[in-house]
């Protein structure tokens, strides 16, 4: 009887430890979100998204307009580069020869590539583009983000393509539709919600990157024109980084507001990504 009591006590202790572990992980998250909101909301205004930083470091006001624009530009470039390549690569992995040598090796190294430090991708783009063009640039930053997004898009798109029922493929092929036509008009549209989720999650990840942009886009206090891609440009993350390292309260305050804007943006993207999946799940049922 006493062993039974001991066994049940041990069971309760271990389950208790699990609950404690969950709390230990969630409490810092709650504090991070609460602190970012509390310290960031004060300076939040419409002009924060459009105004550049003031020239005088100690001056308050202004905003991260340069960074917001830079993040939009560079993430957009990364998306435009990475999505077609990533989705087509996923088509190969899932539709052509999924068990073949190329697919096996690519799938493996795409997984490996998701674990490569983002700063190394920054170093690569620095050596390949910044050193050869002799200038930091928005498009170098965008390409670095694209490289980081690529493996994520390949793997999530492949998962989405694999969920397309085989009967759809068979039905289309049996009607005499060519393979590429089947892929473009039957398989890809069916997998679209899953692919969209992967793309949105990779955009959220890219928008939060700092280290690779430090070495490629470099940062800039000035607003850079939408059409100007050849010079250094800020991103939201770079402005948070530089402002938070300043001793002046006005700059630190802007860094917190920048963090708030960044987190809200990333949370919205993540929620939309989940909603897309949830809607598909609901429809198929």
């Amino acid at each position, binding site marked *: 009887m006493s062993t039974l009591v001991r*066994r*049940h006590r041990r069971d309760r202790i*271990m*389950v208790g*430890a699990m*609950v404690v*572990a*969950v709390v230990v*992980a*969630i409490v810092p*998250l709650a*504090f991070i979100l609460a*602190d*970012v909101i509390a*310290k960031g909301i004060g300076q939040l205004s419409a002009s924060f998204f459009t105004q550049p930083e003031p020239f005088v470091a100690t001056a308050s006001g202004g905003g991260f307009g340069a960074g917001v624009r830079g993040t939009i530009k560079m993430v957009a470039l990364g998306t435009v580069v990475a999505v077609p390549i*990533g989705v*087509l690569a996923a*088509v*190969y992995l899932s*539709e*052509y020869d999924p068990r073949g040598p*190329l*697919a096996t*090796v*690519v799938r*493996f190294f*795409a*997984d*490996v*590539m998701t*674990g*490569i*430090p*983002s*700063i*190394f*991708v920054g*170093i*690569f783009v620095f*050596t*390949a583009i910044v*050193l050869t063009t002799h200038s930091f640039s928005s498009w170098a930053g965008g390409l670095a983000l694209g490289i980081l997004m*690529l*493996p994520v898009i390949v793997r999530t798109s492949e998962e989405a393509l694999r969920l397309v029922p085989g009967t759809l*493929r*068979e039905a289309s*092929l049996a009607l005499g539709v060519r393979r*590429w036509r089947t892929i473009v008009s039957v398989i890809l549209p069916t997998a679209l919600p899953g692919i969209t989720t992967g793309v949105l999650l990779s955009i959220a990840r890219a928008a*939060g*990157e*700092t*280290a690779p942009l*430090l070495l490629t886009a470099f940062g800039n206090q000035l607003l850079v024109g939408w059409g100007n891609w050849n010079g250094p440009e800020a991103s939201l*993350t770079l402005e*948070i980084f530089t402002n*938070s390292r300043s001793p002046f309260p006005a700059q630190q305050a802007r860094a917190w507001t920048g*963090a708030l804007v960044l*987190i809200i943006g*990333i*949370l919205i993207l993540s929620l939309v990504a989940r909603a897309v999946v949830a809607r598909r799940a609901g429809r198929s049922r």
Partner: protein
Amino acid sequence: MTVLSAGRLVTRRPADALFRFTAATCASIVLILLAGMLIRTTWSAWPAFSHSGIGIVTSNSWNPNLLQFGGLSFIYGTLVTSFIALLLAVPVSVLIALFLTEIAPARIATPLGYVVDLLAAVPSVVYGLWGVFVLVPFLTPIWQWLSSNLGFIPLFSQFSSGRDFATAGVILALMIVPIISAVCREVFRTVPADERESALALGATRWEMIRLAVLPRSRPGVVAAVMLGFGRAVGETIAVAYLIGGVPNKVTPHLFQQGSTIAANIALQFNEAASLPLFKAALIALGVVLFVITLLINIAARLIIRRGGRAA
């Protein structure tokens, strides 16, 4: 099978062959990129490699002004902070994964899983910002207390400023909990339900069921999860750059001293290096070292996961 062979027949048409070729090219880009990244960066780092030789990883004197580029202290700092992070994050992550897969009902486990995953959605620059202004003031008195009461242990002696190996390790721990617990959750889910049920049917408590049925089968997967977390910690840059102090040449057992890591040092010294070509090459060389380390860790982890997947 018939479908496959029908597909092959159709593939012979030119439009199909072209589409297939394009898709295969895009798939190959992943491999070309990885190889290209290694070659291009090694090429740019070559002046530093030929200047310092193996000393770039074995020598502990990093003095760019004297053209001394020994990066041992950065490798040391990277390993120390990553080990602190693993020490803190692994038990927590495994327990979280066990709770979410084995104990909590799906109604609670699903939203809780989302929340834990949110830790991964917080950008590292925000971890750094929060770390400097909230975590450092919070941890400093704790570190000071440890230092004055357990100072006879070298690990805890010589407190400096609150920006140190230990603080960087704590923030890294937070950042790698989601990846470790996510992979562990996947691994625990592959344990067949009948093994759990047989343990429970024999009268095992929930914890005994976990110990008898879940953990033994999951060991390789958990090892892989830990390695993936290790790889993340090793490569993390910005949050560590905020919190470690950024002081080179510190190979010390004292965890409450300032130091630096490979990735943090690249980010922190990158601007200074602009005017000195050899300095720049040395930072790129550090990047190559970092890439090779993380590549090996990730390849090993993925091999373990793949083998486990095949066995199951």
